């Protein structure tokens, strides 16, 4: 298996505050990697740095062997990345337009085809395709964000908490959909707190205070004390 994304001692922060301290990470082609970590551990910051929304203050990021550290987000996304942010949509644009932007680089016909697939997955969006995204409920926005990221057809997709705020019926559906995506050879890096996502993952990393504390396969993570402590809040005593 070849590495698609290599993260090498990445450092990042906001103003005077450093958040990431030498993070190392690898995502292989077609692999799904889960990013775990408590509130404020730095998951969002890492994802934003990888996609270029946050300047990288040290270390290097490589996509398919090519150094992308110095590139802006647009150039990285053109090279095959996509990012689903925690909350963002284009509020004054319609849902259809939001989706179209997700497939920014694709042809119209291709975008239309992908959009139809998204509408099937999320009928709520189909119903409101002409409404402004800013009128959606919290969960509907999440669906839109997810659909938008999937629209990209990128080979390396970063997702920041795709299931938070979704009703169980949709969580199930999202997981099913992602399984389909994974089958298509796409690599996923998902920051997520819902345990149900573990079933998707090949491997995972646990972040702690801006550092990579633990990494390993799903099985290794499931049995790791540190993960249990951080994640399930158990095992601290035993």
């Amino acid at each position, binding site marked *: 298996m070849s590495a698609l994304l290599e993260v090498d001692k990445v450092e990042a922060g906001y103003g005077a505050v450093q958040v990431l301290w030498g993070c190392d990470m690898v995502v292989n082609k077609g692999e799904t990697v889960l990013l775990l970590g*408590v*509130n404020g551990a730095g998951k969002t910051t890492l994802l934003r740095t990888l996609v270029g929304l946050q300047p990288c203050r040290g270390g290097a990021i490589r996509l398919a062997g090519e150094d992308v550290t110095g590139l802006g987000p647009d150039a990285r996304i053109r090279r095959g990345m996509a990012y689903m942010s925690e909350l963002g949509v284009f509020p004054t644009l319609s849902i259809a337009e939001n989706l179209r932007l997700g497939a920014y680089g694709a042809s119209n016909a291709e975008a239309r085809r992908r959009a139809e697939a998204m509408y099937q997955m999320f009928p*709520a969006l189909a119903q409101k395709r002409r409404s402004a995204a800013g009128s959606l*409920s*919290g*969960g509907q926005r999440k669906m839109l964000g997810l659909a938008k990221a999937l629209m990209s057809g990128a080979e390396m997709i970063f997702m920041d908490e795709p299931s938070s705020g979704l009703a*169980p*019926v949709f969580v199930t559906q999202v997981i099913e959909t992602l399984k389909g995506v994974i089958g298509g050879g796409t690599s996923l890096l998902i920051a997520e707190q819902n345990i149900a996502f573990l079933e998707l993952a090949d491997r995972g990393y646990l972040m702690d205070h801006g550092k990579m504390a633990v990494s390993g396969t799903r099985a290794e993570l499931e049995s790791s004390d540190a993960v249990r402590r951080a*994640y399930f809040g158990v095992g601290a005593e035993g």
Partner: protein
Amino acid sequence: MSSEPILALTNVAKSFGGFQVLTDVNFELKPGEILGLVGPNGSGKTSVINLISGVHQPEAGTIRFDGAEIQRLTPHARVKLGINRSFQVPKCFISMSVRENIEVAAHFSGHDADIPAILEDIGLSGMEAAPAASLTANQQKMLDLGRALATGPKLLLVDEIGAGLNPAELTGIADLLKRIAARGISMIVVEHLMEFLNKLTSRVIVLSAGKIIFEGSLGDASHDPEVVTAFFGGAA
């Protein structure tokens, strides 16, 4: 103990630009009770909270709090009566510090809040001087809750505070909410995470497409076919 309901919604309806968001919503809440409000995305849960807290006005129906109709009151007047809420999408005062966020609410509500205790509760003690803008989304949500607590509410409306938290953190929040309820604060908790709700309450209302389709215990809900298709999906 047939105490009067602290909150009662009667035939409440709301629409936006022709889109019917809520239809004929009726329910009551007893003092000290925790009510779970669940439903698929876009079913109108946040809208219910918006109507109770006064962010929006209902088109029809009445909302009674402590026996008085409140649906025409401004939001801040309702806050003074003892209603407060958190927001699903965090809305704190981002140009202020964590502490100031809470102080403002305490001051204007005239409530003599124990600010250090609140900071402790919401897990931000030690960060009181940090600008709210530097908090993560989840921390901002907690700050929102802190702001609500600082006004000394009798009824607290909690909108998806658990979203994006891991099981450990969820347990912590559930404990916090239980502690708050134990002080006699009634609560409506909107949540999708059933294990979490289960820790808090047994009574839930299920909304679907703006209508109440179920009212009863959480356990019964998960066996109600309508609820299962609308909310849990096949794999409940």
